[in-house]
């Protein structure tokens, strides 16, 4: 089956052109200054990087990481049960349930975020409801909690889907064998189901954490611009300030930090072994 590898070659060519080359461009911008229009007129400079390493920007990057980690964990904790519940539901209903979990994401993102603003703002739906019931108002928006909520909202389906697809086909025989051998439901879960679902969990974490680190609209609108994240800063540089060099440096630093943390994570997980398919054993 090793020959099957060639199926990946077209994509690797694509990646080289459309991912690597633009990456080199970004790298180029990050290490230069000058008119961005004229590639030949760029001069080498590390000024953008010097600026990135200033404490206030590092603080923003760390904030982004922390927020992304928290929202990823929340998505995992909230989403895993959903995946399990749907995987155990009536087969006829499963497909529909999944679709209904995904369909909200097809509504325009800005509209959905505006809707959250209408719900969470000081005089928004939630607070008005609380007022009617006689409960104290919540000061969620603008603020970090609102940003977190917004992030979880946007990324939850991306955590649920991959976990579900793995859970739905876990060989029932494993579970039956376990209960035949006297394992409790909890034990069966932690020793059999959870480990088997790890590939799905890993994909889910990837699809939530990575975009979460670089997200921006959510923090701008739900955080009131007071908790700027690295994504906000980068967007600001490109869209509002025309400073592509600084924006590029920020992006490169971000990328490097993420790749390093991913490498550290896989080092910690891996006990030097790879599983039979060549993936690091989690």
């Amino acid at each position: 089956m090793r020959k099957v590898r060639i199926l990946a070659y077209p994509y690797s060519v694509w990646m080289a052109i459309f991912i690597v080359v633009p990456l080199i461009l970004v790298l180029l911008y990050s290490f230069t200054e000058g008119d961005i229009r004229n590639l030949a007129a760029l001069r080498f400079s590390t000024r953008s990087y010097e600026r990135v390493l200033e404490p206030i920007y590092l603080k923003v990057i760390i904030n982004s990481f922390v927020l992304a980690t928290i929202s990823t964990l929340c998505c995992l904790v909230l989403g895993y049960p959903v995946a399990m519940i749907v995987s155990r539901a009536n087969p006829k209903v499963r497909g529909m349930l999944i679709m209904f979990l995904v369909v909200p994401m097809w509504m325009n993102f800005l509209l959905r975020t505006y809707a959250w603003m209408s719900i969470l703002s000081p005089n928004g739906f939630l607070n008005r409801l609380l007022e009617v019931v006689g409960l104290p108002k919540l000061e969620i928006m603008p603020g970090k909690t609102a940003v977190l909520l917004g992030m979880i909202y946007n990324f939850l389906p991306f955590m649920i889907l991959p976990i579900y697809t793995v859970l739905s086909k876990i060989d029932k025989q494993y579970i039956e064998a376990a209960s035949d051998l006297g394992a409790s439901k909890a034990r069966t879960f932690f020793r059999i189901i959870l480990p088997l679902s790890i590939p799905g969990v890993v994909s889910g974490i990837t699809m939530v954490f990575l975009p979460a680190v670089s997200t921006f609209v959510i923090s701008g609108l739900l955080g009131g611009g007071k908790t700027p994240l690295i994504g906000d800063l980068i967007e600001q540089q490109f869209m509002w300030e025309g400073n592509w060099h600084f924006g590029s440096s920020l992006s490169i630093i971000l990328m490097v930090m993420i790749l390093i943390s991913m490498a550290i994570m896989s080092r910690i997980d891996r006990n030097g072994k790879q599983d039979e398919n060549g993936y690091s054993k989690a």
Partner: protein
Amino acid sequence: MKKAAVRIYMGLIFLFLYAPIIVLIIFSFNKTKSRGQWAGFTLDWYVDLFKDRTITEALYYTVTIAILATVISTIVGTLAAIGIHYMRGFGKNLMLNVNNIPVLNPDIVTGVALMTLFISAGIKLGFVTMLIAHVLFCIPYVILAVLPKLRQLNRHIAEAAMDLGATPSYALRKIILPEIRPGIISGALMAFTMSIDDFVISFFTAGNEVSNLSIVVYSMARRGVKPTINALSTLMFLAVVILLFIINKKSGEGEELLL
């Protein structure tokens, strides 16, 4: 007891997911454009929808590109995922990490970098470049969706089939693909989701000929988004829901729908 807990939990999750959608739909009937007040019920925005050339044009491109990008990225992504799955060592890790870059990069960086790439190569920005860009950020999601299913596969099944005389192509089509089908479908779903809502990357790679709904919506932000967009979103939502129910009715009893 457990069933009630399950029902309540799922109910809460759906409430969470749909709260903004309900708000969005409510505003599509609001007489005023402002989200600060309810000024009465109206269907005007739904009528306006068809008179707005920017929106109808954008809708066409949004849906077309989303479908095409989903199809292309699902095919390429699935094949690539299978290929990557059977790789080992450095090559495999490299592919996996590079694959993550579009997911990790802020949209603005991808958009600007791609635009520069196209322009430097002398390619005119338009439908094709926007499509390429969409395929670009969709494929990683397909791969990330298919890989877990591949890892779940019993790796000996394919080999066993070939020992029994199947060609690799047959093993692929009749054994592997059906087993990973849920992954493929969920990858397609995620690709579609990513494509239909993209703004930044589309804006920079679209040139002056095409646009999409997100571009239209974000461009309205300075003046206030017109509820015609809410109306459109509501209609799209209804269309999808109706479609789902039709598909569900058509498939037989106890048969797994798609996933």
